[in-house]
């Protein structure tokens, strides 16, 4: 018996066993298994798991098998290595801002826009900035599931007592830093703890989220030209950082607060407001406090808010199975259409038919900040920026001292630019040949 005969025999035996025992009677074929990697844990993970159960149950062509990995650099490292080997999962979730570090090196395969359109997913079904963000080098590399902006949550009881709510129970509008400081001080007056909770210590992302929201409200963006110097308007950057310092005065917000303590302060009703990502919505609902949420007020003239998107990507496969690849398209389209439940986790679904549905309008407080999806400011595109990147960590390392002990904001910004310029001056390891330009 040759080896080939042995294998053939074993395969036949296995096939018989499947037919005899494992396949339910009446089912014509077994569904194809699609490997799906994501980084959603906690409440988001539970919600995603529910969405997957729904799409799996709704049809019999494919079955999605998720692999959940810890978010941040562990996830991105593993995804890069799987794609380098050409044996990546069929489909994965990535932050839209990380695509620039993956697509040029050939770690992602582009989406076929026509096939997506046949399945009802195209430009007209996404907010313009979110759809555009999926593109790089003239191809579509990521399809957004959501936008998750930085928002302002507020305790309705405390804010009502402070007299800062209008007749509809919405927060009074503030149009400049002074009005906002006045409002938060009023809230501090009626809160047991601070007016505003903002946790930032040891968390570069938290510092960057607020800073970039305020900076882009000046109508500006940070630019990172490859091989050049970073472009950041000094005055606007210093003004944004100085406002953050004014908030951390011990009255409006605690000068030394980390992320978890800030969440705890607001969740236990000791503070009137919280600067956080939409992903904490479930935490606050579970805490049972009376609260609402809104987009961060426009304090410097231009509506803008820091955000990122969980997006679907096709990690590079050397030899993709055409059937599985097509089923991956169907899976993504099915999940987007069923993403109403994703909104319950706080995120703003990117698929417009969902956010434009009457049911979504009834979803409070989600509907109160849904407009943020139109004014999202993503990280400046570069191979080294994005959620969970060292870029945000470097920002934190530069400005934390200024926030913690009131150092010179201009010096902190200069230090940040020095770090960024050092990275920019080195060759781009995601595209060392420079063959691909975003």
């Amino acid at each position, binding site marked *: 018996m040759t080896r080939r005969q042995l294998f053939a025999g074993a395969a036949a035996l296995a096939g018989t066993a499947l037919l005899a025992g494992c396949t339910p009677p009446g089912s014509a074929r077994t569904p194809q298994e699609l490997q799906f990697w994501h980084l959603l844990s906690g409440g988001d993970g539970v919600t995603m798991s529910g969405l997957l159960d729904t799409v799996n149950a709704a049809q019999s062509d494919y079955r999605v098998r998720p692999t959940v990995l810890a978010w941040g650099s562990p996830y991105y*490292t593993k995804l890069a290595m799987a794609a380098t080997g050409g044996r990546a999962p069929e489909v994965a979730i990535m932050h839209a801002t990380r695509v620039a570090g993956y697509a040029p*090196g050939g770690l992602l395969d582009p989406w076929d826009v026509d096939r997506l359109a046949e399945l009802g997913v195209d430009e007209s079904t996404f907010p313009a900035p979110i759809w555009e963000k999926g593109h790089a080098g003239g191809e579509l590399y990521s399809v957004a599931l959501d936008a998750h902006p930085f928002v302002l949550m507020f305790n309705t009881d405390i804010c009502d007592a402070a007299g800062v709510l209008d007749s509809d129970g919405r927060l009074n509008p503030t149009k400049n830093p002074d009005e906002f400081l006045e409002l938060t001080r009023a809230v501090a007056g009626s809160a047991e703890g601070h007016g505003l909770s903002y946790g930032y*210590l040891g968390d570069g992302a938290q510092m960057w989220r607020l800073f970039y929201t305020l900076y882009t409200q000046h109508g500006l963006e940070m630019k990172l030209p490859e091989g050049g110097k970073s472009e950041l308007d000094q005055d606007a950057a210093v003004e944004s950082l100085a406002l953050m310092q004014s908030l951390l005065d011990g009255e409006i917000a605690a000068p030394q607060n*980390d992320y978890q303590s800030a969440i705890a302060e607001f969740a236990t009703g000791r503070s009137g407001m919280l600067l956080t990502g939409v992903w904490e919505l479930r935490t606050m609902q579970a805490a049972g406090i009376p609260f609402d949420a809104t987009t961060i007020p426009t304090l410097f003239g231009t509506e803008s808010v820091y955000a990122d998107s969980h997006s679907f990507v096709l990690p590079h496969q050397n030899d993709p199975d055409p059937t599985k690849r097509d089923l991956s398209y169907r899976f993504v389209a099915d999940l987007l259409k069923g993403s109403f439940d994703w909104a319950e986790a706080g995120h703003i679904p990117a698929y417009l038919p969902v956010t434009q549905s009457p049911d979504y309008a009834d979803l409070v407080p989600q509907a109160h900040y849904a407009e943020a999806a139109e004014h999202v400011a993503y990280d400046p595109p570069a191979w080294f920026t994005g959620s969970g*990147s060292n870029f945000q960590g470097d920002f934190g*390392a530069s400005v934390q*001292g200024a926030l913690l002990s009131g150092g010179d904001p201009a010096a902190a910004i200069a230090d940040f630019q020095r770090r960024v310029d050092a990275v920019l001056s080195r060759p781009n*390891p*995601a595209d060392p040949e420079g063959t691909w330009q975003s």
Partner: protein
Amino acid sequence: MTTAPQTTRAIVTGAARERPGHAGGKRGEQLVSWAFLAPFLIAFALFLVWPILHGIYLSFTDQSLTGAGGDIIGFANYAEALSDPTTWRSMGNTLLFTVLSTIPLVVLALIMAVLVDRGIPGQWLWRLSFFMPFLLASTVISQIWVWIFNPQIGAANNLLEAVGLQPIAWLQNPDTNLIAIVIATVWWTVGFNFLLYLAALQNIPAQQYEAASLDGAGPWRQLWSITIPQLGPATVLIVMLQILASLKLFDQAYQMLGGVASDTTRSIVQYMYEAGFVGYRFGYSAAISYVFFALIVVIGIAQALVVGRRKEQ
């Protein structure tokens, strides 16, 4: 070190003499010994020799984690690593941590071992509690100390406030975060050195103490004149192991700071990780690791010289 090969040779010659005329016997024995050694040699070659050689090769290329690059670029990575301020800063942090942690880890271990060895009641409880933290994973101890050092609700600041001092953002303040990591590391790993000292203490003959007390030496005299000198070889070993362990600083610092890059705690191992896995530059990361390797060799030689000179004296 010099006795071991002699012993081996003696056994082999002895065996050969016992069976004269067995031409194939020696070769057969050699085959058997190679067979026994093979699993180790294969693992050694596969997981140590090959990675070291491949690492040296990588350090001369611009290999990227994304699979791109891979061209040989000569000494460019080394030139960059030596002129990169972050390399030196990380190296400095690592050395500072090594000094700050090695001293208490040796001194405290000695004090703890002497106290326990003196036969205070409930010895098993002391031994257990001193050694127990060493058994915990770095993830666990990092979490424990992140709580203790929490600026708002942590036990460390409660203690400071109880004695009327201002609270400190231990892990976030660049002036204190390395100290905080040293404290956590000492608590975590002192048990191992304690155990080594305890074993060494039990090797000191009791007669020496008896003779000393007959001569009228008190406990302090005995400690200075018998215990500490007798522990000399153990101390050399413990200091050497501790320096090597402290130079490898990475996991607890990385985890206690939540993976955030901090200029004052980034160790050289963390910088290697950042350069390779976060910055995608495998070649550059490999070059940094060989620069670090050179530093360890220098420290090793320096240590050997110091110990050697002391022995001569």
